[in-house]
């Protein structure tokens, strides 16, 4: 008994093999090809001839244990208890018996989890904590995601797009959703400098760290009322909130001037073109909970514009690169502002250094 209470540490995660269904163990590394059978359903065929059916359901990501148990029930019923989650937080049931596909889909529907996201569709939005859990958030995460997914939902359920479309959201410039390489990125932004609590800085933060945290050297140490504190040169601040990350006395959040920027044309895969960062499309849209109508309509317009104009396989950024950015701005009805022109380190390389212009 005494032994049993010994503190166990550093055991790491369970070995994945424990969770693999038999068919995967058998065909591990020897899958031959796959086919998408219909939206949300695909089959992988092994060299052995074995067939593994995958049904992909929308993940809510933020899920209660009660929901997870319902999902576990469905897995027990239709996939021998075997399931996995995807890198975009969807749920995949791993079936060996194709007869179980339709009943599983019905079961999922019942608990409110539509299937889709496979092939040329919109998958779940990779996102972050927002007002649910993070002190840094310039906008909510889950709420914006829910609103946008409701809006573009037909493209999750159907495979009616030229290629894959990946949306991601981060609620501040820390970019926990790593939105920087997404077809469409939704990014929470502050647009005002920190409201420094001059009296506290010295008490709760290391002043040299605070000064060093600023990418544009906008923070300088000063002495005010005999206190060592810091001052922000406001013209030099671009609202990244990195000072706030290292020092609570530099809060950034503001109900009126926080909002959302929209970025487009990034990608991660190496298919056809190299991975790319997303680029600024819309510098600022206001926070309008609960449905962020400006954001949902902006995203939806971008999706439809791309869907209507891109060639097969062409991701958002590939399409824009072909038609050129000025034309994209025109077609999307977006205005070009000084904010669109880069002014960070490598800005000079983004100036148009050729005559390749469309009319």
């Amino acid at each position, binding site marked *: 008994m005494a032994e049993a209470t010994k*503190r*166990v*540490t550093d*055991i*790491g*995660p*369970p070995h*994945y093999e424990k969770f693999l269904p038999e068919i995967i163990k058998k065909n591990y590394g020897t*899958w031959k*090809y796959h086919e998408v059978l219909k939206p949300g359903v695909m089959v*992988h065929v092994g060299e052995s001839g074995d067939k593994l059916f995958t049904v992909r359901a929308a993940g809510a990501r*933020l*899920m*209660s*244990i*009660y929901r*997870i*148990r319902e*999902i*576990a029930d469905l897995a*027990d019923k239709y996939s021998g*208890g*075997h*399931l*996995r*989650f*995807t*890198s975009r937080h969807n*749920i995949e049931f791993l079936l060996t018996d194709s007869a179980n596909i339709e009943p599983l889909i019905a079961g999922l529907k019942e608990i*409110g989890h*539509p299937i889709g996201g496979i092939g040329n569709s919109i998958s779940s939005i990779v996102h*972050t904590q927002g*007002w*649910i*859990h993070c*002190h840094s*958030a310039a906008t*909510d995460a889950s*709420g914006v995601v*829910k609103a946008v997914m*409701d809006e573009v939902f037909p493209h*999750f359920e159907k495979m009616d797009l030229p290629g894959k479309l990946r949306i991601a959201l981060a609620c501040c410039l820390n*970019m926990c*959703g790593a939105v*920087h*390489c997404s077809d469409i990125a939704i990014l929470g932004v502050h647009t005002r400098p920190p409201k420094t609590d001059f009296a506290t800085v010295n008490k709760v933060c290391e002043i040299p760290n605070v000064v060093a*945290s600023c990418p544009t050297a906008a923070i300088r140490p000063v002495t005010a009322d005999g206190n060592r504190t810091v001052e922000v040169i406001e013209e030099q601040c671009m609202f990244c909130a990195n000072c706030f*990350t290292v020092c*609570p006395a530099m809060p950034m959040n503001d109900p009126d001037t*926080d909002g959302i920027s929209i970025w487009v044309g990034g990608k*991660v*895969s*190496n*298919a*056809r073109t190299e*991975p790319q960062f997303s680029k600024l499309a819309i510098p600022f849209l206001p926070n309008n*909970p*609960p*449905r962020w109508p400006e954001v949902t309509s902006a995203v939806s317009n971008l999706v439809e514009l791309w869907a209507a104009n891109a060639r097969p*396989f062409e991701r958002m950024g590939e399409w824009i690169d072909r038609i050129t950015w000025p034309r994209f701005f025109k077609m999307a009805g977006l205005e070009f502002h000084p904010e669109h022109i880069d002014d960070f380190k490598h800005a000079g390389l983004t100036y148009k250094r050729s005559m390749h212009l469309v009319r």
Partner: protein
Amino acid sequence: MAELPATPLLDDLEKGPWPSFVTEIKNAALHKDSCKDLLGQLERSYREKIGHWKHGGIVGVLGYGGGVIGRYSDLPKEFPGIAHFHTLRINQPSGWFYTSKALRDICDLWEEHGSGLTNMHGSTGDIILLGTTTDELEPTFKALTDVGFDIGGSGSDVRTPSCCVGPARCEWACYDTLKVCYQLTMDYQDEIHRPMFPYKFKFKMSGCPNDCVASIARSDMSIIGTWRDDIQQDDAAVKEYADKGLNIQRDVVGNCPGQCMEWDGEKLTIDNDLCRRCMHCINAMPKALAPGKDRGATILLGSKAPIVEGALLSSVLIPFLKIDNEEDFKDLQALVEEIWEVWGEEGKNRERVGEFIQRVGMANFLEAIGLEPVAEMVAHPRENPYVFYNQGDDEEEDK
């Protein structure tokens, strides 16, 4: 248990086809006061358009330096249930494979010790157990290890590695992503649990250049599968795709970045010497084409989000590495540890390894870790003539 707070704004988000996180919180709120307060505070955030969390504090479990994110409401009087509302990051299994049993184990312990809310998963890949009090951290940890799980990374440590589904279900996996992910995770338990680096260090493994875990954009070390022999090609199957209406000339050949394919209407010819292993043609015709048989991985280094010095993508460090056996794996680890040593010693506080390389320069970095430069490491050689000719190397250069 009292009734749920009025949440007119949030209620709107229960409508619509997409699964609703509000419904989830409400479900949990039926059992948990903390979730009721979370609902209340969130509704207030929606009304006021501002978050209500204080800057995180340092909390954790005994002997670990990471894996728990401390969080406190800035309205503790109003919402006492979330006065403390810390998050635990639980190291997911490789490839996010579960059994219903494993999920239930986690649900059960979280029902007992926390809010009952989770993220499946966090964007680094962990299971996120969302919200508990400081007191419950140790008991949660105990319950976790009892069912065979452990805490993942946070802070300046190795973050929980993650990998694509790989050979478990994908015909294109060029190495065993699940195994490499598991092995690194197990071998670096100490580095995961006890922050000792200048900043965080993330690993992500993708089985092929499609990069389904976005490793090239989101991990300090990206391990991405590739091959070096010829694409496996089944001509009959190619023809079948054509017959079924795939426009091979325009949509496959025309999109090949190597410009190394030819299609004469009958036969597809690939100049494999110029193939860039981009995956496009294979993606377009999975039954007809497949990566070659001499498979391995490319090791890339340095990606990260913008803070502080600007976002980076990983860049090539080792163009091709076999990772088939123990020995290969040891090579990989030796490299990793060499990198950690140099970065650990010379990296500045809060400087990711990618930023470190940007600062000291690739050539210097390579010299420090003892790796010879190869042309694959650059998109193109330098354009500017400001060359630091090595003054000792005359003879060599003159050759």
